[in-house]
């Protein structure tokens, strides 16, 4: 009874000691230690058994106490018994017969027990064997030990997996960190590029990525948006979508597709580079890189405009001479007629109209030349406020009362280098256009003027301007606005939105030319339904304004002898009559060579030579040179309809005493003659 009780105590303690560790070796060492102590055994071992392929098996001692148990012949004997079962079937048969006992020299006894599903337990006892009852009582202990071994093995595998996962996790985290860094670097690079870059899904059109520049352009976080909606305000994929051009029918990526387009939202021009790429998630996506070529387009437009100007200028230059000559004949003969007709004659008014019309026609030719920069300018320092006020005064009388004219002129003592007539022309043109746009509905026309300073970055907006202080004139109307498609052409010659017969389309073209010649800039801003604003910038100067003293329209006579040379007989005749009327002695020639020969024969006979510029055989300048070779003090006046070969400055440099543009009034002609003869260089055009 006591013995039975003791056995139970021992077995209980052994059972309680099993499975207290998760590490297999530690668990077995501990359990074996308790087994040996409680069963009063000398040594013990746990052997793991593993089935191999091809019907074999292997055994491996996992834990032994003592470590050098191999030195015990009794252990070797027990182990040999197990390892001699070579095949799985032999082993199965052997296991069925366990527990097995044996002895070596009756000094040491061994016990082999099965650890089901794991292997074997070997216990070695000195002097006396374990009792049979005890052995069978150990079976449940062995089963529990076996379960603990299997659990520990599983735990080891799990621990190994966890370790591998940890390593993989660490590697993955490293890779993720590296990827994140790489992504940040990639994003930093892309965000720093001044080009719009975006990636979109080729099937859903969803934007997957957009760089910062693109987000700034559209002032929107773009990822997740649909490209055709957010970029172009379309409800469905764009008709011109290039997706189909980026991959072939087999889904293979083709090359880069390049195209130009003006974005309907930003209104900017872009050069687009589209291509399909493989995205990180395996999708084939669309990548677009677009550079803003709006300035290039503007320059293109400027160049086209400039070419147009040049061609028109060439045309203008070509006809100006002949037109001016003809107009001279008309205005000159009209003047002569006016001398002869009494003022009360009904025909007097008609002749006056003829003269006035011809002078207006001359003005238009001047505009044309102005517009194409083929004419001389008369830029003088003028007070900007006076010029604008003059224009406003005239404007009030010429626009309907349904249009309210407002002004806000925040300038004083502001001097610009300008032709006041042309500035007046500019303001009149723009205001007249505005007035016509508001003709039916009425509205407000507002003129504002102020001084602004452009720095380098703000000056960049204006191709022609640099960092400086400018007079800023804004003409703002509350009219219907200008359509987007028209705004780019507004300064083009002959472009007009008015009905046929209501405008030549030259007004704003001339305005543009005038402002350019004044080293300024003109821009327009307009939205449909929101009116139009023209902004003019003119550079300021430090000089005081020129005060013009207008002389009365009078004729200046004299008794001097004048040689008049012009290849146009009608002009010669008319001019001769003008001058004779004013007391001068006039000799005329239509051939410059003849004129030269005449002068050579009697050089002292003439007090003044007036010559046309464009003549066959010899130009007016050439003739002048030859005349001055003969007589160096002979004053010469060039009187020309137009020539690209000479202007006021060139004439002065050549020693020519005067330069007059046809058509010229009798008053100006006679005054010029007087000035020259009286030794002043004169100009009149």
């Amino acid at each position: 009874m006591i013995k039975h009780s003791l056995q139970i105590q021992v077995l209980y303690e052994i059972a309680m000691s099993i499975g207290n560790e998760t590490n297999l070796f530690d668990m077995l060492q501990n359990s074996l230690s308790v087994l040996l102590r409680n069963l009063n055994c000398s040594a013990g071992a746990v052997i793991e058994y593993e089935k191999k392929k091809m019907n074999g098996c292997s055994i491996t001692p996992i834990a032994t106490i003592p470590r050098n148990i191999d030195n015990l012949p009794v252990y070797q004997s027990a182990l040999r018994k197990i390892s001699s079962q070579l095949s799985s079937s032999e082993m199965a048969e052997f296991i069925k017969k366990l527990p097995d006992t044996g002895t070596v020299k009756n000094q040491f006894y061994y016990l082999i027990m099965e650890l089901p599903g794991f292997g074997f337990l070997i216990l070695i006892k000195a002097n006396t064997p374990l009792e049979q009852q005890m052995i069978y009582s150990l079976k449940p202990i062995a089963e529990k030990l076996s379960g603990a071994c299997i659990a520990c093995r599983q735990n080891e595998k799990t621990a190994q997996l966890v370790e591998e996962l940890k390593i993989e996790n660490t590697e993955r985290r490293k890779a993720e960190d590296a990827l994140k860094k790489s992504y940040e670097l990639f994003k930093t690079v892309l965000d720093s590029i001044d080009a719009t870059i975006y990636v979109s899904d080729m099937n859903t059109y969803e934007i997957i990525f957009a760089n910062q520049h693109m987000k700034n352009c559209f002032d929107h976080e773009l990822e997740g948006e649909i490209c055709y909606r957010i970029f172009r305000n379309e409800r469905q994929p764009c008709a011109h979508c290039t997706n189909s051009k980026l991959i072939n029918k087999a889904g293979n990526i083709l090359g880069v597709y390049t195209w130009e387009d003006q974005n309907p939202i930003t209104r900017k021009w872009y050069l687009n580079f589209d291509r399909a790429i493989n995205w990180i998630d395996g999708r084939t996506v669309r990548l677009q890189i677009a550079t803003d070529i709006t300035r290039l387009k503007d320059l293109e437009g400027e160049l086209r405009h400039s070419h147009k100007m040049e061609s028109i200028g060439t045309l203008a230059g070509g006809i100006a001479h002949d037109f001016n000559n003809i107009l001279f004949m008309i205005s000159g003969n009209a003047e002569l007629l006016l001398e002869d007709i009494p003022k009360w004659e009904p025909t007097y008014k008609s002749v006056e109209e003829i003269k006035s019309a011809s002078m207006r026609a001359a003005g238009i030719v001047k505009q044309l030349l102005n517009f194409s920069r083929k004419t001389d300018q008369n830029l003088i320092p003028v007070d900007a406020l006076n010029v604008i006020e003059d224009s406003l005064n005239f404007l009030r009388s010429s626009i309907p009362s349904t249009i309210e004219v407002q002004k806000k002129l925040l300038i004083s003592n502001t001097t610009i280098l300008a032709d006041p007539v042309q500035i007046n022309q500019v303001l009149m043109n723009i205001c007249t256009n505005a007035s016509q746009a508001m003709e039916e509905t009425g509205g407000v026309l507002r003129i504002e003027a102020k001084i602004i300073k452009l720095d380098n970055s703000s000056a960049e907006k204006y191709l022609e301007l640099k960092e400086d202080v400018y007079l800023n004139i804004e003409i703002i109307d509350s009219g219907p606005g200008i359509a987007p498609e028209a705004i780019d052409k507004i300064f083009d010659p002959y472009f007009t939105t008015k009905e046929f017969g209501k405008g030549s389309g030259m007004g704003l073209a001339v305005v543009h030319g005038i402002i350019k010649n004044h080293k300024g800039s003109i821009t327009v801003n307009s939205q449909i339904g929101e009116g139009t604003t023209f902004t003019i910038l003119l550079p300021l100067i430090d000089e005081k304004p020129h005060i013009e003293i207008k002389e009365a329209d009078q004729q200046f006579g004299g008794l001097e002898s004048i040689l008049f040379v012009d290849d146009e007989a009608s002009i010669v005749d008319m001019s001769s009559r003008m001058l004779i009327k004013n007391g001068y002695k006039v000799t005329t020639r239509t051939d410059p060579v003849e004129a030269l020969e005449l002068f050579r024969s009697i050089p002292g006979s003439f007090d003044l030579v007036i010559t046309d510029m464009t003549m066959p055989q010899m130009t007016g300048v050439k003739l002048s040179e030859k005349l001055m070779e003969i007589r160096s003090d002979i004053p010469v006046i060039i009187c020309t309809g137009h020539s690209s070969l000479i202007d006021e400055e060139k004439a002065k440099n050549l020693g020519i005493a005067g330069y007059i543009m046809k058509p010229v009034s009798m008053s100006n002609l006679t005054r010029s003659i007087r000035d020259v003869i009286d030794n002043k260089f004169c100009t009149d055009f």
Partner: protein
Amino acid sequence: MGLQIELALYISSIFTVFGLENNYIGGGAGSLNMVSKPCLFSNEGLLMDHGIIVFFEGRSGIGVNHGWKSVSGPYRVTSSDHNIIKTLDWKPAFDVYSNVIQNHSGQKITKDQFFDIAKAYPLGIAKLGAERVVRDPIKALDDDSIMCVGEVMEGTFVDILNGDAKSLIAAAGNAKKISLQAINDHAKPSIILFIDCISRVLFLEDKFKYEINEVWSNDLPLVGACTIGEIANSGSDYLEFYNKTSVVGIIESK
């Protein structure tokens, strides 16, 4: 030494490493006031919390015996912490222990004079086919747990033992007999090494000399030590840490 927390591990490690090719005999060194202090002499100086292993070449026979008998039990150690038994059968260890003593001897044991009575009532850990392994209770703690010399694992079954001078002295003689049986017949013993627990000395008092006489031999010189706990394997058994036990080694020296 017996108050070392990892003593069992130390003992089993020695056996695991050196195995059955050696016989083992030895004991714990320390102070009777149970305060740890350096008490081991070595070439490295005075050591504490250490063990010294000395190898003898030569055949030997080791005998272990204690003479304590069970008077009550078994009790399951339901809670322990190394060498401190907290509960026996889910009850405070001191309560169970003091009740047994009271019932057996009529003596009331108190925490203040615990060892005066406890020295006669050690605990015995169950072991199959051998004497129980004795554990010497030396102190009762404030939480009614009992401190022993040497570890007592949870789940172990213990009896409360008792003995007298006669049984103890006889046990010493048995230990000698076992050692003589264990030594090889062809060995020529040259010395008897007697390791006897100091608590047996304290128990036997002036009768200790009789215990020495049991081990004495006219033929062989007798050397030994009174120790706090004994380390030995009896014959070819597993190495154990004993308390209140006599260990006799018959050693042949080369």
